[in-house]
């Protein structure tokens, strides 16, 4: 049996998404996404058309995963968790850079 070969692509090379598509791909509702955007967890690339870079899918999917896995039912609490999560990720990235440049 021949195995299919597929291409993996960089997220920044992927197309932009609408709010509806973002909801569809993350599992979160449009309402929840709007709340997370209001809390500053992420932002549309174009505020007029409400389009999002494909990296937002990763953030929104993380939000969905954390909401499910910790059984969080308050979007504001979820936003706080995500902001802290993003800070940890940023610190880890900084640690990697510092270690690399040591």
């Amino acid at each position, binding site marked *: 049996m021949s*195995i*299919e*070969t*597929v*291409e*993996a*692509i*960089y*997220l920044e090379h*992927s197309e932009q998404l609408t709010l509806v598509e973002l909801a*569809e*791909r993350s599992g979160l509702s449009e309402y929840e996404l709007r709340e997370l955007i209001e809390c500053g967890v992420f932002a549309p690339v174009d505020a007029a058309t409400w389009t999002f870079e*494909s990296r937002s*899918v*990763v953030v929104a*999917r993380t939000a969905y995963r*954390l909401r499910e*896995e*910790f*059984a969080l039912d308050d979007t504001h609490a979820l936003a706080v968790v995500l902001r802290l*999560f993003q800070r940890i990720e940023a610190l*880890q*990235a900084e640690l*990697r*850079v510092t*270690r*690399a*440049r*040591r």
Partner: protein
Amino acid sequence: MKYKDYYAVLGVPREANEDDIKKAYRKLARKYHPDVSKETDAEEKFKEVGEAYETLKDPEKRAAYDQLGRHSAGEEFRPPPDWQQSFGGAQFSFDDIDLADLFGGMAGRQGTRGRTGPIPGADYEAGVRLTFEQAYAGAEIELDLMAVEYDEQGMARRVPHRMKVRIPSGVTDGQKLRVPGKGGKGLRGGRDGDLYLDIAVESHPLYRADGLDLHMDLPVAPWEAVLGTNVQMPTPAGTVSLKVPPGTRAGQKLRLAGRGFKRADGTAGHLYANVQIVVPTVVDDRQRELFRELAGASSFNPRAQFEQETR
């Protein structure tokens, strides 16, 4: 199919209400979630706890689970004859699935039941571990996924999925890549889901990655630092000759432009060689004599700053 006692996993009695179940789950999630737990078997434990909660939090699934009867954990069993009619809907082969698939399948049916429009396929996520060389040059890796797919009736089945994925050059540790259309199949004309790859890159004994830039240590002898020299530098793309200028200090970074990670679109990082001055630990009499002579001849004060600051 092996029985799992979901109530025991969550540590709640069978008559526990929804609130107690959620409380018990939250407590265990805080204890075992891989993002917060330091326990060694956290991931495995969290999977068990998550599977139990997934079923018990949903009244319909919980009722279906209760109808399976009481068995001891790990015991082989089959659902009672009427179970399938009550909860399973159409035909369902019990041989090639486990308890999690059984209730996962119910979720699929609940999600799709009553909907007539197109239903998009689920997105998948998979971890991929690359060697430094694979990350640098790009690689073709083989990926085995176990996908739960739903047929037109919304019935779940496990489908093994093997594919070759071409990873582009220049991927970095912690990066995510997307394989469009390789997630779950869409239903009734819905788009297929995407596959997301979480990339982990193994560390290299010489190079340390910082985005597309690379850093490495360049040890030089004291006389090489003073007099300057040419060194043969290993780079991921092959050895190059690097000029160390006279008077090079420890900690100075020599840049090899464009010698870092490269991407197909032409963007490239640099390779930085971090100068370290190393001294021989074993010196013979003649060398010691030469160092003494140098010490006598030199007026260089490496700690001049101490005197300035403490004056």
